[in-house]
């Protein structure tokens, strides 16, 4: 390679390396600060006790439970609905104006700000369907928030399954549904699940959608049914940062660290599931 060309190439690589660092540094800084400031708060009591004295003492156990509950609800609602919709759109619906409009609508829905989902949830689930502010209303709202992402990633996963597999199965006398169930879905599942978990972990950290539909600032007791209001980590953070005076710094950072851990944990699970399924199919 001529010297000039090599120099150009090295400059290019260096520039990319610098850009990568620029992208990573803020992330590391945020995580570092959270860990640094929140670590002292992470005691057994903090993780397993309800708050006391209006959030200024005690723990965040109800908020952890609330967030896990909301997340579970979101999964139960969004996963079957999203994957089902994607299967219908990719495998059954023809390519016509109707499905094109649906696709466009889904893509647009993914761009709607989360606070709009919050208001939608308030209007539909809390007031019209009379669910009240509750775990159920919150999970439904978060479910609908996540749905577009789940549908899109599931659609992509299905489209990535080669038609050769479908044809081979049909030519063996399988029905369309058998083909989908036994061939297409297993092949698409790792990507589907990864996409879904990433979407849901995003939802787990949202404040606006649950603000009007599910979350309360201070409920020391655990929810006893899906009709109960709950505490939730993102809303808790919002509250201790803006509404509740005199909350010690380390408690706020501790809660943020826990939320981050839950979200990262879910993302790690997504990666693990994907890797495992890939390996299993390749062996």
């Amino acid at each position, binding site marked *: 390679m001529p010297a000039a060309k090599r120099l150009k190439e090295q400059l290019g690589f260096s520039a990319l390396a610098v850009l990568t660092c620029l992208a990573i540094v803020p992330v590391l800084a945020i995580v570092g600060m959270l860990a640094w400031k929140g670590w002292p708060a992470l005691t057994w009591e903090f993780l397993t006790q309800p708050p006391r004295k209006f959030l200024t003492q005690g723990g965040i156990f109800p908020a952890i439970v609330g967030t896990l509950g909301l997340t579970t609800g979101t999964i139960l609602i969004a996963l079957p609905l999203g994957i089902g919709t994607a299967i219908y759109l990719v495998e059954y619906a023809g390519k016509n104006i109707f499905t094109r409009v649906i696709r466009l609508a889904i893509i647009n829905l993914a761009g709607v700000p989360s606070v709009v989902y919050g208001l939608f949830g308030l209007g539909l689930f809390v007031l019209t369907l009379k669910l009240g502010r509750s775990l159920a209303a919150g999970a439904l709202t978060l479910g609908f928030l996540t749905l577009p992402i789940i549908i899109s990633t599931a659609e992509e996963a299905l489209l990535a399954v080669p038609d050769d597999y479908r*044809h*081979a199965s049909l*030519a*063996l*006398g*399988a029905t369309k549904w058998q083909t989908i169930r036994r061939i297409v879905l*297993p092949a698409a599942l790792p990507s589907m699940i990864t996409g879904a978990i990433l979407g849901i972990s995003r939802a787990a950290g949202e404040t606006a959608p649950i603000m009007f539909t599910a979350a309360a600032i201070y409920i020391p007791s655990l929810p006893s049914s899906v009709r109960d209001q709950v505490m939730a980590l993102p809303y808790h953070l919002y509250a201790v940062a803006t509404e509740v005076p005199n909350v010690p710094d380390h408690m706020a950072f501790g809660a943020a660290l826990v939320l981050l851990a839950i979200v990262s944990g879910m993302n790690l699970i997504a990666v693990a599931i994907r890797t495992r399924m890939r390996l299993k199919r390749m062996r």
Partner: protein
Amino acid sequence: MENKMETRKLSVYYKNFQALYSVDLPIQKNAVTALIGPSGCGKSTFLRALNRMNEVIEGTRVEGEVLLDGKNIYDPRVDPVALRKKVGMVFQKPNPFPMSIFDNVAYGPRIHGIKKKTDLEQIVHKSLAAAALWDEVKDRLYKSALGLSGGQQQRLVIARVLAVEPEVILMDEPASALDPISTAKLEDLIHQLKQNYTIVIVTHNMQQAARVSDYTGFFLNGELIEYNTTTAIFTAPREKRTEDYITGRFG
């Protein structure tokens, strides 16, 4: 000899494009029928029309009749799923499922309701042996089929079809991706299979058509130009165009 299948005035369209023009072709029972012709002349289209696999392609339309044991398979009362169990297909490109060798072969029997492990094992063994693959894979049945060579994959998909026990096997250029040794094995296999099955094979290889088939049909631009016994086609073709094609003067 009796006809296992027969097409009558079969025309196939892709949207507005007519790919086959009124083809009449008999398919003899327990014999190998070869389809030859230049690329794009409609051989794959014809093959897919024989087990209604063209229906999975959007915008296809069929006119005329295809008889299987004297009954029109395009009759609205015929279930394409049941039909495809009887008329199996090996695709141009080997397409094993991304699962184990065993599961690939057991796929057909399983969807048709066979559950017992010992039954499945027996079918898998028999089918792999019939496809001349058993010895090569018997120690790795539970490994992924994607780890097999191209030639082994092609025999695996044949075993997968055999496991369903079809009556007719359609093969679309099954040897196009194979080396000479695998090709020879495949041709031996076709020879053995015709004792029990009716076989239709598409091939671009004239020697192969001459070696494996009993009857040959020559297609050109969507028309069946000539059909006869393979010996007659290759020694005394009636049509000038057939002669030109098999002697390599065009196509």
